[in-house]
């Protein structure tokens, strides 16, 4: 079963890669074939993921190659299967959505190329998580990075897109360099690139090398995941891609880095961690979560805002994993499993709601041709379906019950609260601080999506684009709807999800907690101890619905007979105009004030007065921007240093034929002399 679905997946994606360019000049056929095959391949991926999760033995296939150290080895254990499932689930919905979305590219971009790259992207991500050979992993990882680069620069005629692509390309290669170093550390100990020898080397790694491997992996994979301060490329690159690709990049691609981190830390370096490893991950996670959401608040470009939220959610995932690592250090394996489980749960949840939100943003872009939130407004009336699905995504990402974001964030909270079991006072204090930062993150995320939803969908249209917006085609709605259903399902049915996740964390943490995270016959979730706390989302959902029903009932019973009258919103006797609406900038003004140390905002206010009197302004110009701290203080100096060095080295490249010949000659003579 697994082998068949794996082969089916490979065949369909390969078809999706090679067939679309064979039909030049027929965009409709290219669109149909590329996305159709991607859908079939995703279905195979779903089967593969589910059977892989349920299988008792991992499936391992290895095909030797002619290159030394390289074998095309794949191994599908529960961890890999889970990520295959996540990728395929998101891939399925996004591919359905892409049918409709790509119609706007007809005649503008080569759909053959786009479809081919899109399938290649999905295939490479799938291969990354099932690769079982370090060399093979690096190859598919690099393919994934390059393909996603080409997807980012789809609209390469815009200069900001080219800039985003270049930025991404450089950052991802810096990351890859560190990943190669990590694998070389394992390689020199194991003598082979096979993951099996990484897992069980003949002699264990010395302590120093273990630490190096830990740090290099964090930097290398952290760059792809977008942890602070390596996140700077993410808000540029993710929005620049076509929206359905953004959904995959933000929802799924950064998760491959999470997969690799878990694989390296728990699988290869498993066993006893020094306590500061977990602490580092925890700190990185907390900072990423908080800064991610705070920068997101200041964004008025809807897709950039979502990209910053990816930084935040990667932080939340890392909080869970970091807590797990700390518990592992002190032998509290049940809690370690819980932390890991929370992180993994949030991984799939984030993949669903982030993909949903990006598809929603894509629909807005499709309908209004702009990403600027200040030009939306009043879209709920014109695009009710998109609005509703976007709302579901927004509720999920803000971690409100009964959706999936709430469950996983609750589990992360619980694993942080359990820190009082730790025997070290310092950690007893630090973990609750991380929980407090997570709480702040949650509140700010809620504020952010109140802004994003409110400004986009409510009130009056702010531009002619928004006024003429129409609902998007049916395939796009189906894609978003599927993800919205997944969000709600994952929230209401943790009793289905948790036993599956337990099959992953069991081998990694060394203990199965399936029986202890579920209480009341599976209707409630508990952090391994029902007395400590427990949560039942179905009951919660029931309560919410019945409360709402009760409210309506009371209003009906106590209020008088309702008489409907459609009229404008009352505006104190003045006609309502666009200029009375909240702007995105205005909405976040209080938060900007409170955290002005972080944002270092620059405000420019130019007023042009009437010539007759200084009391009457003719025109006012307001400009506002926040300082990108990391870019200014961390990246700009590095870039300056390199470009200055390169300028100095230019002297060597004089362009003179004789000089180049002289270089060769001098080198030859010197080498001859040295040889003697």
């Amino acid at each position, binding site marked *: 079963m697994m082998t068949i679905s794996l082969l089916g997946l490979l065949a369909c994606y390969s078809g999706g890669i090679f067939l679309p360019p064979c039909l030049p000049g027929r965009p409709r056929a290219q669109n149909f074939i590329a996305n159709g095959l991607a859908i079939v391949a995703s279905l195979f991926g779903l089967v593969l993921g589910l059977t892989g999760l349920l299988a008792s033995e991992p499936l391992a296939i290895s095909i030797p190659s002619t290159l030394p150290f390289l074998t095309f080895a794949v191994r599908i254990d529960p961890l890999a299967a889970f990520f295959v499932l996540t990728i395929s689930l998101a891939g399925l919905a996004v591919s359905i959505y892409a049918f409709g979305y790509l119609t706007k590219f007809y005649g503008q971009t080569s759909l053959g190329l786009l479809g081919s790259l899109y399938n290649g992207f999905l295939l490479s991500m799938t291969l990354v998580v099932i690769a079982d050979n370090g060399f093979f992993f690096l190859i598919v990882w690099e393919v994934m990075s390059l393909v996603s680069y080409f997807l980012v620069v789809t609209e390469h005629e815009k200069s900001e897109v080219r800039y985003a692509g270049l930025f991404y390309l450089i950052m991802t290669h810096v990351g890859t360099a560190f990943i190669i170093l990590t694998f070389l550390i394992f390689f020199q100990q194991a003598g082979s690139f096979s993951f099996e020898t990484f897992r069980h080397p003949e002699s264990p790694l010395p302590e120093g090398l273990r630490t190096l491997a830990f740090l290099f992996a964090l930097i290398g994979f952290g760059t792809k995941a977008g942890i602070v301060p390596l996140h700077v490329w993410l808000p540029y690159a993710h929005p620049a891609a076509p929206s359905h690709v953004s959904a995959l990049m933000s929802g799924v691609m950064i998760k491959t880095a999470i997969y690799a981190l878990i694989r390296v830390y728990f699988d290869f370096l498993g066993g006893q961690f020094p306590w500061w490893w977990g602490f580092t991950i925890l700190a990185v996670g907390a900072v990423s979560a908080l800064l991610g959401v705070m920068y997101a608040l200041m964004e008025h470009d809807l897709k950039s805002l979502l990209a910053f939220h990816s930084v935040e959610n990667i932080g939340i995932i890392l909080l869970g994993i970091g807590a797990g690592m700390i518990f592992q250090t002190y032998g509290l394996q049940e809690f370690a499993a819980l932390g890991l489980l929370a992180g993994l749960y949030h991984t799939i949840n984030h993949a669903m709601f982030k993909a949903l939100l990006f598809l929603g943003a894509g629909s807005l872009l499709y309908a209004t041709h702009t990403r600027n939130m200040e030009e939306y407004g009043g879209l709920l009336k014109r695009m009710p379906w998109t609005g509703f699905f976007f709302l579901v995504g927004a509720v999920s990402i803000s971690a409100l019950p009964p959706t999936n974001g709430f469950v996983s964030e609750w589990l992360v909270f619980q694993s942080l609260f359990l820190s009082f079991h730790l025997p070290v006072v310092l950690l007893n204090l630090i973990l609750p601080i991380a929980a407090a930062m997570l709480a702040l993150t949650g509140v700010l995320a809620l504020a952010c999506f109140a802004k994003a939803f409110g400004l986009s969908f409510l009130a009056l249209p702010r531009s002619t684009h928004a006024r003429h917006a129409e609902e998007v085609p049916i395939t796009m709605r189906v894609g978003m709807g599927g993800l919205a259903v997944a969000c709600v399902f994952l929230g209401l049915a943790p009793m289905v999800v948790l036993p599956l996740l337990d099959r992953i964390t069991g081998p990694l943490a060394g203990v199965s907690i399936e029986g202890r995270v579920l209480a009341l016959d599976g209707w409630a979730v508990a952090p391994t101890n029902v007395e400590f706390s427990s949560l039942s989302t179905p009951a919660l959902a029931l309560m919410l619905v019945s409360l709402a029903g009760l409210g309506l009932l009371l209003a009906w019973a106590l209020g008088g007979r309702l008489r409907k009258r459609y009229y404008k919103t009352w505006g104190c006797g003045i006609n309502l105009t666009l200029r009375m609406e909240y702007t995105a900038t205005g909405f976040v003004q209080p938060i900007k004030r409170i955290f002005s140390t972080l944002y270092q905002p620059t405000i420019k206010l130019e007023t042009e007065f009437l010539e007759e009197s200084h009391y009457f302004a003719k025109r006012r110009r307001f400009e506002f921007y926040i300082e990108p701290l990391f870019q200014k203080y961390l990246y700009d100096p590095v870039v300056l240093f390199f470009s200055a060095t390169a300028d100095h080295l230019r002297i060597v*490249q*004089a*362009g*003179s*034929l*004789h000089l180049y*010949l*002289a270089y*060769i*000659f001098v080198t*030859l*003579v010197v080498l*001859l*002399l040295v*040889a*003697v």
Partner: protein
Amino acid sequence: MVDLCSALLLLTCFAIVAQRRLSACVDLFALQSVFLAATAALVAFLTGIHHIYVAAALTVVIKAIVLPRILKKVIERLNVTRELQMNINVPAGLLICCALVILAFFITQPIIPLGFLLTRDSLAIALAIVLIGFFTMIARKKAVTQVVGFLVMENGLFLGATAAAYGMPLIVELGVFFDVLVAGLIVGIYTHRIQDAFDSVDTSKLTVLKE
């Protein structure tokens, strides 16, 4: 005898470095090729290896007759007879060449006693010729003399192969001759193009191609 012929080869090298007239340079190269062929024939005679005769004959045909003709035609068409400006002037060039010869002998000193062939002493001269050929390419500005420098290097390599191992297998030799011929043709055409584009065959003007 072999050593004498090799020494004559080296002497023509110096003559090329000292000569300003382009057509004379080409003549000297032809002369050098004749000496090379003589050396090769001598080696063939002394060792009784027949395929070196073929190589020697090819050397005469291609390097002493065909290539000089091509180069002379190029010179005629370009209408440049003298090279007035050089990167390194003639006396300094000759001194550097002397230094290169000393260097070549110095480097090959530890290797030569290891050999057992009667041509082994020519190895130092071969290396010196390669270095001088290379130096010519750097010192001169005109494309034609650079070609001559390149061909001189090739002669040095051929001598080196003969000296160190009684020549390469015939098939390799044939390949090399063909390469040299093609290189000569290509460079001839290429020089015309440079002339058309820059109104000169001075390769230092190629620096303007830099952005």
